């Protein structure tokens, strides 16, 4: 909304607008930069994948190793995203609706995984659960495998997607204040009733966006998972790791075919994000849309 009115203002005011040729020069510069770093690489993924025709492209997915990699990727996302969702909602509830000391420290600590290199995210779990790690002996005595197995992959995925839902919800719930929830409680709603009838409808779009983003990162994580996976084909390879192996074996068509699947997921994520932003903007302007109908 603000963008639109602003643009109209700029358009109506010749005094603070650039000459047409400068506008197009700037637009050209911006597009050239985005082209070099975004559009051309994105197009390359699909072109390289289809280089030897559609048949070869599809055959990359019927390989058992590829199928088990896709399966493992889904499992890792299916476990880590719901856990981070529960965490995100409870962290946002405590931070946005209550005042307590140490709140800004807590917010900074929640952001920590963004600042940590994915390689280090993998390393710290190796230090704890690896053979030389804190619990290494105990785990190997009890025949429990965490590192170079599914639990390690899930842990690393949880770490790298840790802040996403909380990051989306905290500013949203802070902006919404707590009047509506307080009204619900005062009128006799139970805690769960308040949550399902008041809080959840208010935050659903932000929540959805947080989940979409964590899911994209969970399915695409490479560095952290690479450290803890052990790269056993057909067993502990996620789809991004499978891409790496195929690429290093000079099997470019299959590598880019699997990569195109992940790129498609990224594009769907961006499309959903745009939809969610549009819905949120709509939800914030209910009076306006009612007037116009």
């Amino acid at each position, binding site marked *: 909304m*603000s*963008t639109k009115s*602003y*643009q109209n*203002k700029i358009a109506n005011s010749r005094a*603070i607008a650039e000459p047409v040729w400068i506008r197009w020069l*700037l637009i050209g510069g*911006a*597009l050239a*930069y*985005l082209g070099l770093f*975004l*559009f*051309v*690489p*994105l197009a390359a*993924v699909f072109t390289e994948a289809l280089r030897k025709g559609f048949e070869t492209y599809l055959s990359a997915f019927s390989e058992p190793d590829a199928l088990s990699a896709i399966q493992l990727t889904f499992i890792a996302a299916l476990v880590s995203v719901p856990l981070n969702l*529960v*965490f995100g909602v409870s*962290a946002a509830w*405590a*931070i946005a609706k*209550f*005042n*307590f000391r140490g709140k800004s420290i*807590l917010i*900074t*600590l929640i*952001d*920590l995984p*963004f*600042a940590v*290199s*994915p*390689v*280090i995210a993998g*390393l*710290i779990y*190796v*230090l704890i659960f690896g053979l030389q790690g*804190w619990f290494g002996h105990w785990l190997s005595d009890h025949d429990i495998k965490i590192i170079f197995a599914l639990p390690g992959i899930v842990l690393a995925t949880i*770490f790298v997607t*840790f802040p996403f839902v909380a990051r989306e919800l905290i500013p949203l719930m802070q902006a919404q204040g707590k009047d509506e929830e307080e009204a619900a409680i*005062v009128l006799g709603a139970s805690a769960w009733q308040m949550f399902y009838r008041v809080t959840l409808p208010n935050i659903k779009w932000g929540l959805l966006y947080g989940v979409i983003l964590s899911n994209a990162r969970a399915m*695409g994580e*490479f*560095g952290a998972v*690479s*450290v803890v996976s052990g790269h056993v084909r057909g067993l502990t390879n996620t789809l*991004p790791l499978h*891409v790496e192996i195929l690429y290093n074996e000079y099997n*470019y068509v299959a590598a*880019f075919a699997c*990569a195109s699947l992940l*790129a498609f*997921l*990224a594009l769907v994520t*961006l499309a959903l*994000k*745009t939809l969610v932003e549009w819905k949120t903007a709509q939800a914030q302007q209910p009076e306006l849309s009612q007037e116009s109908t």
Partner: protein
Amino acid sequence: MNLNLQPKHTVLPGFTPALGFTIFYLSLIVLIPLSAAFLKTSLLTWDAFWATVTAPRVMASYRLSFGAAFIGAAINAVFGLLVAWVLVRYKFPGKRIIDALVDLPFALPTAVAGIALTAVYAPNGWLGSILEPHGIKVAFTPLGVVVALTFIGLPFVVRTVQPVLEDLEAEAEEAAVSLGANRWQTFTKIIFPAIAPALLTGFSLAFARAIGEYGSVIFIAGNMPMISEITPLLIITKLEQYDYAGATAIAVVMLVISFVLLLIINGLQWWNAKRNGSIK
């Protein structure tokens, strides 16, 4: 940490379980594992630690990781500002799709970005074959690292500057013009100071993201020790040689630098919010 668990008067339920679970989960997933890195390093003597983290090959990797991350973030500061400007102020076909695609580096798995950039910038790739005759080699050189880190940091500056540009009051610019400023003076004296904190925040975020980046870099870098080997790769190399202490020592150096950057970024965001008259 001294947390006061008594919220001020409120009828809202669930504070203690929500905060309790938050702190429990945060400790379990993030704080305890991270402290493992510091504890592991504290087992080393200071001399051994120092020798590990200042070995010539490690120093070369810092120079590459930090240098390339800095150049990438600088490129993104200039062109990210340009993209934000164009998206906020001008109308052109395909604008909405381009706006949505700016976030692609957030959503695209880094390994996919890595092999795509390599395919494009390799000597026989679409852009590499154009640059090669001019003596510019991108893939498998430090320049390739810069390209990958520029890709990774691309959305940060755009997304921090864009909202500030949208909220700028046209009146301030009109006042500058009516007082006799030309367009360039209006930009440098009125617009730029208003967006400077956001620009610096975006730059720092891109820089912080780039120094730890692994997936998109290793395919395009060539990974030659002393020349095109980034620090995160060195950590992996040491792990593969079962040199856990060495890997952890380097990781601790990177962690400390990342934490300092995180604090700087928090300060910048606070400054940004203050400059724009709203503390979140």
